[in-house]
Each structure stands twice: as C-alpha cells, then as structure tokens.
C-alpha cells in the first residue's frame, strides 16, 4: 500500500464547483492556482473533470437547483475522495442562509471533510484546508476502494 498511499497525498487533483456563491470565494479559489500561490508545487491541479478529481472544492450555499448537480458530481468522483467546503456560505449558508431558495450549507447534500470559513476565504486558508484534507486522507485507514 506504501507507494500508492504516498502518491495519494502528493497528487490531489481538485475539481471546483460553484453552487450559488457571490463569486468572491471562487476568485479566491482560482487565485491559489496563480503564480503567487502556485499550488501545483504540491501537485494540486485543477482538473475540471469529476472523473479525474480527488478533491471536490465547493463554494457557495446549496440551492434547490444545484443540490442535484452537486450530488451527481460527488457520485462521479472515484474513491477515495475528499470534500472541502470553502467560504462561510458553503459551511453554513452564510449571508444567504434564510433565502427562499437556499437549502443551507453544503453538508446538507454531501458529506464534508473540511470546512474553510471566511467571507471570502483567503487563498492561504484554502491551501490550509487542502493540507488538512490530505492529513485526514493520510490517517484514513481502509478507505473505500
């Protein structure tokens, strides 16, 4: 299990999904990929394809429309997978929490591994979140195959 286990931690490919955020968190998530933060140093690549991804990065609160899409995306990611909720909205619904169309935080629909609060969450915090998720992955024993 050694080499595959190490590789999992060294190469998390992310897919970024925007529920119904105000776009603040999305911009911060994309900023991680720019030369200033350059997460590719850690092997993190933005894949844009759920079937190649390991980490689902979600921004914004879930509404009735995106819930279905989110469930579908989550199901398409092969195991083992990690879910990170980025921004206060994704964690709990944030400023949108009692809108008529909002279900609430992402954890109403898919299981979340790491919460990154902040409005908007800073790129450093997002990178920290991914590192936390990887630590969780490293500790996880007998992950689903």
């Amino acid at each position, binding site marked *: 299990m050694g080499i*595959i*286990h190490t590789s*999992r931690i*060294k190469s998390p490919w992310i897919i970024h999904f925007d529920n119904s955020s105000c776009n603040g968190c999305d911009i911060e998530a994309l900023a991680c990929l720019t*030369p200033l933060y350059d997460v590719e140093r850690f092997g993190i690549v933005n894949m844009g394809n759920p*079937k190649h991804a*390991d980490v689902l990065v979600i921004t914004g609160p879930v509404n009735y429309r995106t819930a279905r899409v989110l469930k579908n995306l989550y199901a398409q990611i*092969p195991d083992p997978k990690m879910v990170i909720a980025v921004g206060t909205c994704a964690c709990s619904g944030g400023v949108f929490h009692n809108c008529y169309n909002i279900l609430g935080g992402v954890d109403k629909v898919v299981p979340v591994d790491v919460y990154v609060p902040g409005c908007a969450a800073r790129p450093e915090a997002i990178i920290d979140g991914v590192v936390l998720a990887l630590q969780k992955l490293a500790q996880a024993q007998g992950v689903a195959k």
Partner: protein
Amino acid sequence: MNQLWVAIIAIIVAPIIGGFLAGIDRKITARLQGRWGPPIVQPFYDFFKLLGKSRIATSRMQFVWIYGYLVFMIASLVFLVLKLDILLLVFLLGFAGISFVLGGFSSKSPYSHFGANRELLQILSYEPVLLLMALGIYAQNGSFMISEILKPSSEPLLASLWPIFIALLVILTIKLRKSPFDIATSHHAHQELVKGIMTEYSGPYYALIQLTEWYEIVLLLGIIALFWANPLWIGILIALAAFILELFIDNIAARMTAGWMVRFSWAIGLVLCILNIAYLYLMKGV
C-alpha cells in the same frame, strides 16, 4: 535471445524516461509561467495515485480499446529498438491512434465523442506526413529498415531530409497534444470540452493513458533521433532540443481550431515532404 532482452529492457525503461520527460515538461512550463512548479517525479505520483483509485466503468469496450492503444504503442516502440521496418512502425502507430479514437467513441458522453472526432482530425493531419517520412527515408537509403539508417557508414538523414525533419517537428507538436494543436484533449481549456477524448476514463484506466503517452514521447523522440544516427548521441541531443522547443511553443502559442490544424499541417508538412521526396527522386533518378 539478445533481441528479446533488448525489447524487454526498452519496454521497462521507456516509461521511466517518458515519465521524467513529462515531469521536466511540467517543471519547465511552470518556470516559464513564473511559478515554482511540481517536483520532477510528479507524473509518477499521479500515475500511482490513479492506479489506487476505484474503477468506474461507463462502457466495457472502452477498456478493450485502451489496452489496444497501449499494446500497439509498445509494439511500435519495439519495432524502433529492434531496428525493424519504419513503414510498419508508422502503421502500428496509426493503429494505436485508431484504437484510442474507438475508445472515445465507445462511451455515450458527448465530450468524449467530440474529442474522438477531433482525434480523428489529428490523425488526418499527422498520418500522411509520417508515411511520407518513411517514403523519404526509403528514397534516401533504398530501404525501409531502421538498421540501414543506423549503419556506421551511412551519413545523417538530416542533411538530405531536413524539410521532412521540419514537417516532423510540426507532427511532434500534434502528437504530444501541445498548443497550438491541443485539440482532442484540452490540457488546460476544460471549459471547452472538459477533457475531450479522455473525459470518460477514470482511475487506473486514465493511468494507462498516461503510461501510453510516456511510451509515445520516447517513441517520437527516438524517431527524431534517427535523423542523426551516427553518432547517435548527437541525434539524442537533437531530439531533446526538439522536446524543449515544443515546450516553448506550447507556452507561447494559443490553442487553434481543428480545421486550422489540418490546413496548417497539410500546407506546411505535406508540401515540405513532397518537395523533399520529389527532389531526392529527381537528383538520384530512381
């Protein structure tokens, strides 16, 4: 027996070289973009991680074709290292491409179909040039055998076949799926067609595609090295220089459309090849 060992060693060593080349690719690309970039061994991490992921099947035939892609690619590499017929090598490479296309068509995803259609266009652009390259080598050497090229007495092909060499550089860009010909898979432009022909492959099967691509890099650079076969190390240096050149082109060029690719590769590649071969035939009066 000796030949068998050469083939086995090539099959084992080629992906290691290819993986490191892919790592160097990512590193240099990152440096060109002002980033630090992943470690050189990053492609191996990706490969082993993908091997450990769960298998999600969208269609069973897909996997048959992906193994075909790998096996045909390995077969053409074996043809190269055993110094066999270069024409057959080109045909095997063609089979490999077709297997990949059929794999793309065998799932129902529209992105995969788009990618497969474009992969067909890519084959349409590079296959004639590769065939004409084999013909050019025949016109020069009077034989399709790679062993004939590698004979110590023969002079470098580059001297007489330099137009074909230039055409081959264009083909290299198409085969390595670099901008401006990054058309069937879209390494970076996910918004357009997700991952194109590779969209439906996940986990271990995607790892197989990466493995095949590593074989492909080594095979293509090997073919380029043949253009300066004596001494071979100059050829290898030329091949590495061509690889670095591809990286620069990848970073300075925008992605173009598929139609433009076919027009470009035919207008430049085919014309250069045909002029080259016509000149050789006229001069030698074959």
